[in-house]
């Protein structure tokens, strides 16, 4: 069970925004994360829809995180949607011995991602950068 590329990039973007602190353009985000501006616009759509980012027009406009307590779960849920289990539409679900296990598996991932906030990651980021003498 892997996180999709879309999910990973969304996390990187959100982490950057959380650590940047103020509104910034896709160009700025792109320079920092290495993600193209065009793809960034696409990534922003579900993040905006889920109210995780706020977009502002004008000179000091751009994107910023909408609130302090956003978790990795919030970001992944917005960018990847609901169908994460191997067999969500399986007709044999009722009789399946493995279905319950995959639920537990998904819950394990969800619990791990709900426990990590962007702010805590941003803090770690700062410590990593300090440690590297940047």
């Amino acid at each position, binding site marked *: *069970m*892997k*996180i999709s590329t879309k999910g*990973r990039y969304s*996390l*990187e973007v959100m*982490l*950057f925004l959380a650590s940047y602190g103020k509104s910034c353009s896709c160009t700025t985000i792109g320079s*920092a*994360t*290495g993600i193209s501006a065009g793809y960034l616009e696409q990534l922003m759509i579900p993040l905006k829809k889920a109210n995780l980012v706020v977009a502002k027009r004008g000179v000091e406009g751009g994107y910023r995180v909408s609130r302090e307590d956003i978790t*990795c779960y919030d970001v992944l849920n917005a960018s990847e949607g609901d169908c994460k289990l191997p067999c969500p539409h399986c007709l*044999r679900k009722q*009789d*399946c*011995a*493995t279905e*319950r*296990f995959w639920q*537990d*598996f998904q819950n*394990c*991932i969800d*619990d*791990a*991602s709900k426990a*990590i906030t962007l702010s*805590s*990651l941003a803090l*770690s*980021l700062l410590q*990593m*950068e300090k440690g590297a003498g940047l």
Partner: protein
Amino acid sequence: MVDIASHQGPVPLPSVSGRQEISLKYLQQLAFLLCRRGLLVSVKGMNGGYSLTRNKEEITLLEILSSLEGDLGFSQDLPANENVFQRCLRVNFYEVADKRLRALLAGTTLSDLVDSVAPSSYEYDI
């Protein structure tokens, strides 16, 4: 594996294919990998098929899945030259989640799965 564990004696793949609605060809590939890993053994002859090499209580999902898909974790497929954001996520999220998933897989046995459904689901033949 659940299907084989739910039956007595060697289980022929065509019967698994019928019950689980998985193509025989694909099952053959899986059986090969599971045999190579030492989880299944092939019994030749008239009443032949595949059998577990150990009790179902002794086979973990970690052993089964890792013999098929490598590691099943988040830490695979990561870019070679990671930037600082990717590194931060890897160390604080992906690797943490991986550990928890591995623990779950290591702590779940084949018998946990087999015992979680009514016997009739796996024992009847089409």
